[in-house]
């Protein structure tokens, strides 16, 4: 039976259970309950707004929205920018992951550490930085005497500008998922291939790429879905160019605030959700055809010698890093230091007033740091607890139900933050039966974070479960180990590194989350994202930049802490550690 199961291979959604006994299996569906509550109910509640007009079921909103050419143009624009952005993420993130994980380039730890930071800078700020950098008042270009004249067209206000920044912003996602995978690549297999005469390209196409395809596919899917729901970059770069994507179209609908606004937003949200699900379904299809399982952890990772080309490769990597990290960071710091917006920064006029103001005058900064810290740690811990058993069920007990859940968890992540926030308000303002309201408390932001980031925590764990050979479990079961025992002694230790990596990713993403909390906050419950957004929104861009600089500093400090602690943690827990 075991041999048969191995021959049949692993096909999500189609294979029958390979291991397990009936009594423990009956408990498994219960694991879906928390997922259902936190991530599917709010979306379902929002969908209801789209199919009722004045309390009566109706297809009016659907017809209006789907019948409008604006909708389809925005959808096409979303597909184009998200698609092109994903390709860019894949090129940058993939190249970094392969080179860092498989070759003998130097200073890997520093390189990877720096590569993680762009993801931590809020997208709005990245966009602002690039526009400032390439505009007429650019401190850098002015110093070089290359600044364009006033009023010259800004190349970033275009579809390709949006795609480029989306690509840069999400390259770390591809990098992280791929790297978790590369970590498990056995050196022995490559050496065997080499002995058999495989060289260069053949080694890549026939051994390395197939073995790492689950991570590559997962990373691509995640980058695509993230880019699809991104609001900050298309808002900063697309609105000036009259270029709408679905998230900015939703924002525009909200700005019109007629009575039909929620209905139309709900239909547009469903459209984004469907594109995301479609994208993910395609990827699952691709993934389902593959079965490359590996036996536990590898002792020695692969180590390709680059030889004479090593210095050149290193130089290119560092140059890319300069472009995607140093530039936005420099612009951010410069904006935080100017005495007033638009004034050119110089050695004579820089000022730390903005930092003083946000740190010592306005109590909201410290409060926001505290709130964001609690929320992101809470979300990371809770999500890991939910995701470990959930990933097991989805990977090892594929049924139609788990397959559906697996697709639907993408939706809260793909929706623009503001739409997820509306869904949470509708559902949690007054919870039926127990008549408790989460609205106006930190709890509603917490639940929204769980919904939004579930998929970030889930995918790495699923990825590592699907790479583990069930033979390990079968052996344990043959010795009489029940489900609980197998989870504790076999599966958890092997999945722990990817679970920890997922948790860390959730923590870092939630820490400066911008748009979900923007609608859900209330007095005293502000998050860092809300603080930055509100300051910028009310014209205090300099103060907003100062808070953003502080956030980046704290994140770097935390990452340094993890880096230092990584020697004492199991291998793979710290996602960027070499």
């Amino acid at each position, binding site marked *: 039976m075991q041999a048969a199961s191995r021959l049949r291979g692993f096909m999500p959604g189609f294979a029958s259970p390979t291991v397990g006994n009936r009594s423990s299996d009956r408990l498994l569906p219960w694991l879906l309950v928390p997922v259902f509550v936190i991530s599917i109910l709010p979306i379902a509640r929002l969908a209801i707004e789209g199919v009722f007009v004045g309390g009566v079921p109706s297809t009016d909103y659907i017809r209006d929205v789907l019948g409008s050419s604006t909708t389809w143009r925005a959808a096409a624009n979303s597909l184009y920018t998200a698609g092109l952005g994903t390709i860019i993420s894949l090129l940058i993130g993939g190249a970094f992951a392969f080179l860092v994980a498989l070759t003998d380039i130097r200073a890997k730890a520093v390189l990877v550490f720096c590569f993680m930071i762009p993801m931590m800078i809020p997208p709005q700020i990245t966009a602002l930085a690039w526009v400032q950098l390439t505009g007429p008042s650019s401190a850098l270009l002015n110093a070089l005497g290359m600044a364009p004249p006033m009023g010259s067209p800004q190349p970033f206000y275009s579809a390709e500008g949006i795609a480029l920044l989306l690509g840069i912003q999400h390259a770390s996602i591809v990098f992280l998922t791929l790297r978790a995978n590369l970590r498990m690549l056995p050196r022995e297999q490559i050496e065997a291939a080499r002995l058999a005469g495989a060289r260069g390209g053949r080694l890549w196409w026939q051994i390395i790429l197939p073995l790492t395809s689950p991570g590559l596919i997962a990373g691509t899917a995640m980058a695509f879905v993230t880019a699809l729901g991104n609001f900050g970059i298309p808002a900063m770069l697309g609105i000036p160019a009259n270029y709408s994507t679905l998230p900015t179209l939703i924002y525009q609908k909200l700005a019109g605030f007629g009575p039909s606004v929620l209905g139309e937003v709900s239909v547009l949200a469903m459209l984004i959700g469907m594109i995301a699900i479609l994208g993910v379904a395609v990827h699952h299809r691709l993934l389902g055809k593959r079965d490359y399982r590996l036996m536990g952890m590898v002792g020695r990772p692969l180590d390709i010698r680059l030889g004479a080309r090593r210095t050149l490769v290193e130089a290119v990597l560092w140059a890319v890093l300069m472009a995607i990290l140093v530039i936005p960071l420099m612009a951010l710091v410069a904006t935080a230091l100017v005495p007033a*917006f638009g004034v050119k920064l110089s050695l004579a006029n820089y000022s730390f007033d903005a930092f003083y103001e946000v740190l010592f005058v306005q109590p909201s900064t410290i409060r926001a740091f505290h709130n964001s810290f609690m929320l992101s740690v809470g979300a990371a811990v809770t999500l890991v607890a939910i995701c470990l058993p959930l990933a097991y069920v989805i990977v090892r007990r594929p049924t139609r139900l788990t397959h559906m859940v697996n697709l639907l968890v993408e939706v809260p992540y793909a929706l623009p933050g503001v739409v997820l926030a509306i869904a949470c308000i509708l559902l949690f303002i007054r919870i039926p039966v127990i008549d408790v309201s989460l609205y106006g408390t930190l709890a509603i932001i917490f639940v929204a974070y769980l919904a939004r980031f579930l998929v970030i925590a889930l995918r790495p764990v699923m990825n590592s479960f699907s790479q583990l050979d069930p033979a390990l479990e079968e052996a344990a079961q043959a010795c009489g180990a029940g489900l609980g025992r197998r989870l504790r002694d076999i599966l958890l230790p092997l999945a722990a590194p990817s679970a920890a990596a997922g948790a860390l990713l959730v923590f870092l993403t939630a820490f400066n989350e911008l748009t979900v909390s923007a609608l859900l906050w209330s007095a005293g419950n502000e998050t860092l994202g809300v603080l930055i957004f509100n300051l910028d929104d009310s014209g205090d861009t300099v103060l907003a930049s100062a808070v953003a600089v502080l956030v980046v500093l704290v994140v770097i400090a935390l990452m340094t802490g993890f880096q230092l602690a990584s020697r004492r943690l199991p291998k793979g827990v710290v996602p960027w550690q070499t």
Partner: protein
Amino acid sequence: MMRNVLLAAVASAAMMLPVVGQAAEKLVLYTSQPNQDAQTTVDAFKAAYPDIEVEWVRDGTTKLMAKLRAEIAAGDPRPDVLLIADTVTLEGMKGEGLLQAYKSPEASAYEAALYDADGYYYSTKLITTGIVYNTGVEKAPKSWKDLSDPAMKNQVVMPSPLYSGAALIHLSTLTENKELGWDYYQALAANEARAQGGNGGVFKAVASGEKPYGVVVDFLAIRGKAEGSPVDFVFPTEGVTYVTEPVAIMKDAKNVDAAHKFVDFVLSNKGQELVLDMGYVPARGDMALPEGFPARSDIKLMDFNPAVALEQAEANKKKFADIFGAE
């Protein structure tokens, strides 16, 4: 493992317990004023009425309304009082029966155009929209028409009425004006003026010199100039358009008495002093003007009718989108 899940569930449940505030009297305020201004207003009101506890939420009008719409759809709107950007939004809410009327005794000090005759909303300040320009340019514009001068081709930026409520009012005012009308917008489009998001973005584009001329609300430019940004503000010769940050009471307000007190307070001399201190033009006719502004008599307000603006809103947006090739 199950134990871990349970622990996590209990922990998250504990976090979910709502914080219940207990006060003699309460007031829930939704406002779109900038953070600091909102804090100042609430602090002053609490100083005047120490027994009233104020819960307030500050956000951009757009997001505030999205939040409020969701609350209404869920059957539980929270605010008692709204203090938000424009009368057109409130005119719409009045039409939908979402507001309640209150005749404030302070109204007598206000011009009739600045409040609703039935008492559904009252203007609290004048935020005018004029022209901002980067001081790096050679020639300062004087009138709205200057912006359609071919010399300024591709140099002008303005907030988009598709995104900004104040910009929609601006559009409505100028297109209803006999001298300007839709021809003016055609000329702007021909001049390749850029319509982008909100006022903040326009100010940034002008201050950074990316587009040297812009259409923007007065206080952003005048405050920016005072802080040292390289910009100046012009009150165009044809007059300025304006929004008035009106205050209104929700139909479903739970604290009606406190809401009345709040409306009276912001309209009173004392409340209007605050508006002045924040650097805005108070709506009350007998008040001084903040530094950097010309005399009240020199600010020419263009004619504006919220009811017409509301009626025309959708058609105006569509026409604008057609002319500017926007989506």
